[in-house]
């Protein structure tokens, strides 16, 4: 079991923010072989990563970053508008079509039945997709974020 105080002192040592008194306190811990070994392991990892960097993208990447983000944002708004427009147009077309189907007595009965079944299936499918999307949005974890 590693003592919490040892952890804090080791972190402060690595962070070069250890006071003289804390240094003495750490030295006492290091008289124990297990703590000494653990301390050395911590230093080894610190030294290994000191010579490494996170990979940096080329400078042009940053020049276009906001523009690309903005384009994606704008396209998102465009897709929403297109979807609303299409929904309105298709809804109106379906309404007109069904109205005509029932008003017009001339067509074969089997075609009317077939179309009603087809539209019912499409409606169920659309409702199912909307419900799935709604549940997904509702459970979206970032929505939980508070100010």
């Amino acid at each position, binding site marked *: 079991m590693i003592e919490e105080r040892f952890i804090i002192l080791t972190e402060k040592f690595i962070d070069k923010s250890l006071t003289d008194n804390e240094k003495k306190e750490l030295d006492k811990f290091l008289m124990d072989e297990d703590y000494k070994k653990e301390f050395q392991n911590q230093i*080894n990892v610190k030294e290994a990563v000191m010579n490494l960097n996170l990979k940096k*993208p080329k400078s042009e990447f940053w020049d276009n970053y906001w523009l690309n983000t*903005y384009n994606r944002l704008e396209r998102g708004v465009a897709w929403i508008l297109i979807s609303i427009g299409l929904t309105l147009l298709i809804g109106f077309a379906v309404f007109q079509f069904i109205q005509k189907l029932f008003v017009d007595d001339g067509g074969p009965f089997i075609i009317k039945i077939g179309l009603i079944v087809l539209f019912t299936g499409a409606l169920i499918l659309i409702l199912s997709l909307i419900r799935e999307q709604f549940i997904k949005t509702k459970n979206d974890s970032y929505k939980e974020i508070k100010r």
Partner: protein
Amino acid sequence: MISLKDKKEFGELVKANMKRAYFAALGFVGNHDDAVEISQKAFIAAYRNYHKYDRSKNFYTWFYKILKNLSLNMIRDRKKIESLDFIEAKDEDVFKSVESNELAAKIEKALFTLNDNERSIFILKEFENYSYKEIAELMEIPIGTVMSKLFYARKKLSEKLRGMI
């Protein structure tokens, strides 16, 4: 909907925070393409929720939660880690650099055996030089917890990298 003034202000916020957003995402997801995707997606999500942002608070602290959640969702959704390529050697000496890059590849893999919080804290501290206080504020946890998580992250890495460091 947000106003044109907000749009301009938001653009400035993106420019001011894009680098640390990208590098934080890189630490979470482990490669350039996913880091770009997630960091931009997080800015778009932040833009759509900008009206909820309390301007008396630090933007990046608020934004970081969105970024973290989106990153964790991406990690959860992908079956396995496709490619890790986010650490490189500082060394300009070609021979030393080859050796250091081999170690970098091993450290990348070892980092992805840590849990998400340990990995992000380790990367913020060791690669982005955040202070304990800054990490504590960003992750909304006590400084002691940051120190403890960092310590155990190093301990796990030391076990994974035994014989190499």
